[in-house]
């Protein structure tokens, strides 16, 4: 059950990795100190010494791979051309739109499905989260207990949740179909037919995402001063008006970053779609799972690199526009 040699080996491997990282950081700092402080006598030397480990890490493990990926995306690299690949310019970028991305499915069905997936999920997360947060944001008995039970799905590891739900979508033995039968409805082919499978993905992801939004929004609600509501009451406002005229505007600084991040995270959610889609229906793939399959099941590295950049630019474009219109990034300029 427990291999002692493996334990020692893993400890030494991990330990040596930590030591190597420490060594690199020390050398980097000493180098910067000599150059910035001793030689150039820069006033802001401390700043650069503080951020350099992060910058170096990101350069080596994010920027460099990305630049390299940019290069790969212009080659025909694949399993059969792993070492002897050729430069083919922007042809991969054209292919993403003109050829099937996987066996049959093409880019645009995947794209629309991903938009639908993102929209359904984020809408349910925000609306569900808002309703629960409003209900929880009042003096009442058992409030702490409700709050704790509601955030449980968030604390559950995503992989566990996805796999457990997949088991429960089983046609015969899953509780969902058993309950459907008990209330006299037809059981559903959750795992094998396209539309129910997509619905199953959404159900799981909504279940997982509502708790996070609830607590974020609850935190925001609690920071709103009661005076606003008192003033509104004196002016004879009803609850509905108070919600639209006070709560929502005051929640905007919390909601807009949460919605941006939520959208990006949902757009990029891999585990749920990948695991719930047990039989690899191409009709359930969203962009990121299709990307993974194109790269690691069909081994079209050059093609999938181009595909990855297209996905990235879609997200970047969305976030820029959203951030500009809502002013969610104002804090950066401070």
């Amino acid at each position: 059950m427990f291999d002692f040699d493996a334990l020692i080996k893993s400890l030494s491997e991990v330990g040596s990795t930590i030591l190597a990282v420490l060594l690199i950081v020390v050398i980097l700092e000493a180098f910067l100190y000599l150059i910035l402080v001793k030689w150039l006598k820069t006033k802001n030397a401390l700043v650069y010494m503080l951020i350099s480990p992060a910058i170096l890490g990101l350069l080596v493990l994010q920027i460099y791979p990305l630049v390299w990926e940019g290069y790969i995306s212009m080659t025909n690299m694949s399993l059969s051309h792993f070492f002897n690949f050729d430069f083919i310019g922007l042809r991969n970028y054209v292919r993403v739109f003109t050829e099937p991305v996987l066996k049959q499915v093409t880019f645009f069905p995947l794209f629309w499905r991903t938009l639908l997936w993102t929209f359904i999920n984020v809408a349910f997360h925000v609306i569900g989260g808002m309703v629960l947060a409003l209900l929880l944001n009042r003096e009442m008995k058992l409030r702490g207990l409700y709050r704790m039970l509601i955030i449980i799905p968030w604390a559950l590891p995503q992989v566990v949740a996805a796999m457990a739900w997949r088991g429960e979508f089983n046609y015969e033995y899953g509780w969902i179909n058993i309950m459907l039968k008990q209330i006299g409805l037809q059981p559903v082919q959750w795992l094998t037919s396209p539309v129910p499978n997509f619905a199953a993905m959404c159900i799981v992801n909504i279940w997982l995402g509502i708790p996070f939004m609830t607590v974020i929004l609850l935190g925001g609600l609690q920071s709103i001063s009661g005076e606003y509501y008192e003033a509104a009451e004196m002016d004879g406002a009803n609850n509905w008006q108070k919600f639209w005229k006070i709560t929502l505007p005051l929640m905007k600084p919390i909601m807009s970053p949460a919605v941006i991040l939520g959208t990006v995270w949902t757009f990029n959610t891999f585990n749920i779609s990948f695991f719930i889609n047990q039989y690899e229906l191409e009709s359930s793939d969203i962009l990121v799972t299709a990307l993974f399959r194109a790269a690691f099941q069909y081994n079209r590295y050059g093609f999938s690199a181009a595909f990855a950049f297209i996905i990235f630019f879609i997200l970047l474009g969305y976030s820029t526009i959203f951030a500009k219109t809502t002013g969610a990034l104002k804090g950066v300029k401070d």
Partner: protein
Amino acid sequence: MTTSNATLEPSTLEQKQPKRRKTNFFRANHGDSKFKRLIIHLILIGYCIISVYPLLRIFSVSLRPGNRVLSTDLSIIPPDATLENYRLVIYEQGLLQWIWNSLAVTITTAIIGVIIAATSAYAFSRFKFKGRSTLLIYLLTTQMIPTAMLMVPLYILAINLGLVGTYRGLVIAYAVTSVPFSIWILKGYYDTIPTELEEAAIIDGATPLQAFWKIILPLSTPALAITFLFNFSQSWNEYLIARVILGSNEAILTWPLGLNRLMGQYLVQWGQYNAGAILVSLPVMILFLSMSKYMISGLTLGSVKG
């Protein structure tokens, strides 16, 4: 509320304020009818059931004896409950080994990640320097990179450097993934600490670095704990990168990969999977739930501030 309140002295209003703090929102609802309160409780209880039931099901399936794993029984504690699945998943499947592998990788990356983020977040919070806002926006932009996007270059790099099938490869691949978000969380927290504290220390002769070490870091313990937990949970729950980097090296599977093997397309160890899932999730969930208050405030601070 009567109109006489409007003429109250400001001081009396302020005195009343602290008592109301907790109940201020939609205060009018405190005159709610019993019926309305009942409805609210029913909705909340309903949602609690939705959120907890799937978890109870995992528990319930994990207690089933091997020959009855597939059953249409809906009771939470099955009549012939047994811990056999727990024994099997620990002794026959090597769950402990998987957990150990995950812990080794996760703790290493979380420590590296927090140290890197804590120092750079201080620079972003306290100093104006060239390229600051560009860097901050870049850090946010990295949130938009799909994990699957970095997979191809990381995988090919790992092949070329001989890191496929090693812990080292996985630690390196994980190390910076949570750094950008951690920097945002910590910067948001540092921003709430008044600069006067450090200024006073610096007047007393401390260097900025000493001020950071002696004043900011101790004050930020909760935020550092949150960041650690955030980093921890990111790599603890990670499946995709581990699958690609560790590949088929049986000896060093992390628990998501190990558990996943129990759920193969043809051979499904449903009961053992659920037992393993309970054993893996419970400690993390308890940790999460006990820290959730701090985690949320950390996350909101990070996002509200920018």
